């Protein structure tokens, strides 16, 4: 397991960071609060995913996230539970997690695409 934190403590810390940094950006705090992230994740988990679309989109991920498991610097995503997967992409998309490649990748994923990918990788061996 890759152990991405999903506890309330982590969320509370993130909220604090963003409330502080949002001082100069009035719109940001509202967009990136922990509650909003949680709501986004719930909404995506509720979408009924298209498996064929998930398989197609998942091809792009396979280049780095190899099917057989983790490799240096690149976590395993095959078999990742849907809620972990969705949280990770939502947080990359919101700029809350570091890594240029993942932020840019997630930035262009819409909710239904994240849902499709999550379903695909949860079912992968």
């Amino acid at each position, binding site marked *: 397991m890759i152990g991405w934190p999903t506890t309330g403590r982590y969320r509370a810390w993130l909220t604090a960071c963003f409330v502080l940094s949002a001082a100069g950006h009035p719109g940001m705090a509202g967009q990136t609060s922990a509650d909003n992230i949680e709501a986004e994740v719930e909404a995506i988990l509720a979408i009924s995913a298209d498996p064929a679309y998930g398989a197609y989109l998942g091809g792009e991920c396979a*280049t*780095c996230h190899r099917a*057989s498991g983790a490799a240096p610097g690149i976590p395993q995503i095959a078999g990742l539970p849907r809620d972990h997967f969705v949280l990770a992409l939502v947080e990359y998309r919101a700029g809350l997690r570091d890594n*240029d490649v993942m932020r840019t990748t997630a930035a262009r994923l819409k909710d239904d695409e994240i849902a499709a990918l999550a379903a695909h990788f949860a079912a992968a061996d």
Partner: protein
Amino acid sequence: MRLTRRQFGLYMGAAAGTLAMPAYLRAQDKPRVVVIGGGPGGATAARYIAKDSAGALDVTLVDASERFTTCFFSNLYLGDFQSFDDITHDWSALAAHGVNKVTAYANGVDRDARTVTLDNGDTLSYDRLVLAPGIDLKWDSVPGYSEADAEIAPHAWKAGPQTQLLKEKLDALEDGQNIVMVAPPNPYRCPPGPYERVSMFAHVLKKKGFTNSKIFIIDPKETFSKQGLFQEGWERHYPGMVEWYGPDVHGGIKSVDAAAGKVETDLDVFEGALLNIIPAQKAGAIAEIAGVTNENGWVPIDPASMRSKADENIFVLGDASVAGDMPKSAFSANSQAKVVAMTVRGDLTGSATFPARYANTCWSLIETDDGVKVGAQYEPTEEKIASVSTFISQTGESDDLRKETYEESLGWYAGIIEDTYS
């Protein structure tokens, strides 16, 4: 309408006849896909077409070699970060997906008959043809440098024996001997490649304790990929060793004398015990033979599918294609291959197709644990494949981040090799 006994017997006989037919003839009912070129573009396309169509398609992959040495990461072999075996692979695992690998050189395409001829005399029929032939060098592009000279002054821009030759010459250098690189003009395979290679040259010489050797880069380009990052890195790790000359300074290359180790420019004659001459490039030969290239020698494609503009049954991907904002890289080829696979399967089996999307990241190693990257997401527009968002490493980044970036590239290599050859 009731079946008469005679009709029934005919039907049964026909069915029995079909079952009695040998497998290779029955297989001729399957739509046929021929892929030429077994690199990260072609092998990925063949693999995905075969594995995702679950036996519905007949897939043949043609490559003239028995093994494939990746040009990507070959610089790391030059720098002693990878062995030659580490970067050399074969196609044996693809058979399990249903890919039939043929070791031969494709030397003809008949687009009307839809056949490919091979240098072993065989002819392959296709319903869809995928060309992923990589690049060929334009031998007349550097004055005084010919194909024969590549044995003395290797380009090593197609990996394999050329890379090993370059490594031998690099390792044979003595302190005080110089390296002269002639970099290629745009467009070419792997934009940051020449500069990562220079970094690897410098790394090897520095590690040996050399203090009197210089590396000269004579560049036809005014700027180059990740220039700020490389120049910062060379200053930091190899001060005084690397000198880059743009066209404004060198004034043009007049002539290369490979045997004498000299590159003459308008400004001066640069001498080196090792010359690495990287000529201008074009699509691999089969593309021109197939009649799908433009006047520059590259293949225009439909951005939404990678179909060649000249023939809708022929897909071209990877370095050979004109892929808009995407660089000529292994990552790009592997990304484009998936769009090709989806589209071919859609054409031939009616499977679902989705809007094309593409991505690329290029990692470069400057010194041990000092890696940088540049990349983007892309989507098709009317005009070309266009970048949607980009990212690039920054000068002044922490050592930790540079180390992470390098390690990420190792993970990527393991991933793309598995995605292409397993």
